[in-house]
């Protein structure tokens, strides 16, 4: 009888030890190494404050306010000598109306040292743009969807231009497959020492041709006119920069 109890007690102790060590090992391996992409929006050198702050009309008279800025970042890819890794269902709707006034994308289980470059798209790739697939933040019933035969708005910027007491609505709904723009950034320079955070700056003045600024009075709304869309979308190339 006593022997039996001793054996069962021993067995219990051993099992507990095995479970405890397994738990500790799992805790170790699931300790996430992650990469955080943080996007902050600015208008030139000033931070973007929705609703309450006004900014000079880039190429003309008056000031403008922004009620909303949203855009898609898609198909994030990390390139490294050991191999490349692509995020699955990689569609992120970047927006700035949260309490932090920045937007973060967290890529889990990434050892940053393994990669040299990060690649991402502004907009929605033609394949996903032509379907009603529900993936990531893509939602055919969402605010960024036009309708299933037209696809998605890649970028939405809405606000008002105020000029001599006159208020003109600003509506920029920029889509179309030709606008999809892929950007590449070096990782090493982007990562500040001992962090796993990359800071990106989104300067919306790039949408209005920073080198030869547009007067918003002349182009206050852009939706389906192909030429106007191309004028705004050419700014996607320089819209996002490393901070």
């Amino acid at each position, binding site marked *: 009888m006593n022997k039996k109890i001793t054996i069962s007690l021993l067995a219990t102790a051993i099992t507990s030890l095995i479970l405890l060590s397994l738990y500790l090992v799992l805790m170790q391996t699931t300790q996430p190494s992650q990469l955080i992409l943080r996007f902050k929006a600015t208008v030139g050198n000033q931070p973007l404050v929705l609703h309450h702050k006004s900014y000079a009309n880039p190429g003309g008279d008056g000031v403008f306010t922004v009620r909303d800025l949203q855009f898609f970042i898609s198909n994030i890819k990390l390139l490294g000598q050991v191999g490349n890794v692509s995020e699955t269902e990689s569609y992120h709707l970047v927006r700035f109306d949260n309490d932090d006034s920045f937007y973060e994308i967290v890529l889990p289980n990434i050892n940053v040292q393994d990669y040299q470059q990060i690649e991402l798209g502004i907009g929605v790739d033609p394949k996903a743009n032509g379907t009603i697939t529900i993936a990531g933040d893509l939602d055919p019933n969402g*605010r960024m969807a036009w309708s299933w035969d037209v696809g998605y708005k890649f970028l939405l910027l809405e606000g008002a231009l105020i000029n001599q007491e006159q208020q003109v609505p600003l509506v920029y709904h920029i889509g179309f497959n030709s606008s999809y723009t892929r950007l590449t950034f070096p990782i090493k320079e982007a990562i500040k020492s001992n962090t796993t955070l990359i800071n990106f700056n989104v300067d919306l003045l790039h949408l209005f041709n920073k080198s030869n600024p547009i007067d918003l009075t002349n182009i206050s709304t852009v939706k389906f006119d192909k030429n106007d869309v191309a004028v705004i979308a050419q700014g996607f190339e320089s819209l996002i920069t490393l901070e």
Partner: protein
Amino acid sequence: MSLSKKIQVTAMLFAVSVLATLYLYFKDKPPPTHLADLTLPFIFGRFQIPVDNPLTAESIILGRRLFYDPRLSSTNKVSCATCHKQHLAFTDGLKHSVGVSGRPLKFNTMSLSNLMWGPRHFFWNGRSASLENQALQPIQHIDEMGQNLDQLVDELRQDNTYPILFKQAYGRINIPAIAKALANFQRTLISSNSRYDQYLRGEITLNTNEELGRKLFMAHPDTKASLRGGNCIDCHSQFLTSGFSTFFDGFSNNGLSNDDNLPPALFEVTGKEQHRGLFKTPTLRNIALTAPYMHDGRFETLQQVLKHYNGGIKRSKTLSPLILEADNISKAQKDHISLNLDDDEEKAIIAFLHTLTDEDFLSNPMFSDPFKSEQVNE
């Protein structure tokens, strides 16, 4: 007592306490009967059901009974179904609903359908963040059902049927179980067999007028690209026809009031000035049956609604720039805000809106008054 005896007793006590804990843990757990035969259209997209309220057949049976039971009110005369009538897509046809107090409410009754999708905020001003939370508010509202919840629990415990139904669904009768059951019944109110749905599934074609209306519904006008539009899609999503689910994107100021009369609306919930005058964008499913329209029931017909968007917009500081800017005639707008649609286009949009009527939804026996079918069976 020998050592081995002591160990035996300890082991037995331990086993008993484990069993007791397990019993207490599972005693109030609902049975794992998950709903198997619920079909959900994939075009409606993702949805979430609270982890602590699985969609079980038992909870839906209970929720349906509660929904139709006037004992939920202080006078035992008003049930949820008093204002949410199935044949009117769960509205009541009144400008302002009337509950136990007899005083007309400030707001128009909202239709109940496809509630698992669209804005995650309920009521016209979005003050409730879940269906469970929403369900208890009209019951307690002094003008709606005026009921004390503890008293309601007592009343339900005295009943012959409820103790069994609650036991099967949630283990016991309490306030959270009432809320959960009502929420789950409402989750099953899915409308997905209108002519528009049949068109989307490729089963039928729309007639010329309806198809013109559909195209106008889905388009924001752009005179530069020669695109005419009714601008509906800017607030009402293409398949659900409700507001958008993200953040407060499903709320809008659609030009019903000028600055002097702008109601607080979503501002009451968020305290943000930019939300003053923004109300929840409702679903348009079965819209032909849910008159009168708008949060205050100010329009009696769809013709009046179209006239509002087509020339009746009032300017205010939070008016949607998408409404302010939408015009089918280039640079026509100065002070007068209008879509500038012609009469035929207005009629076409109304014809399309009628394709959103779902006869199956309006007569589905699963959504009907269970007390009536009990009487028939007796």
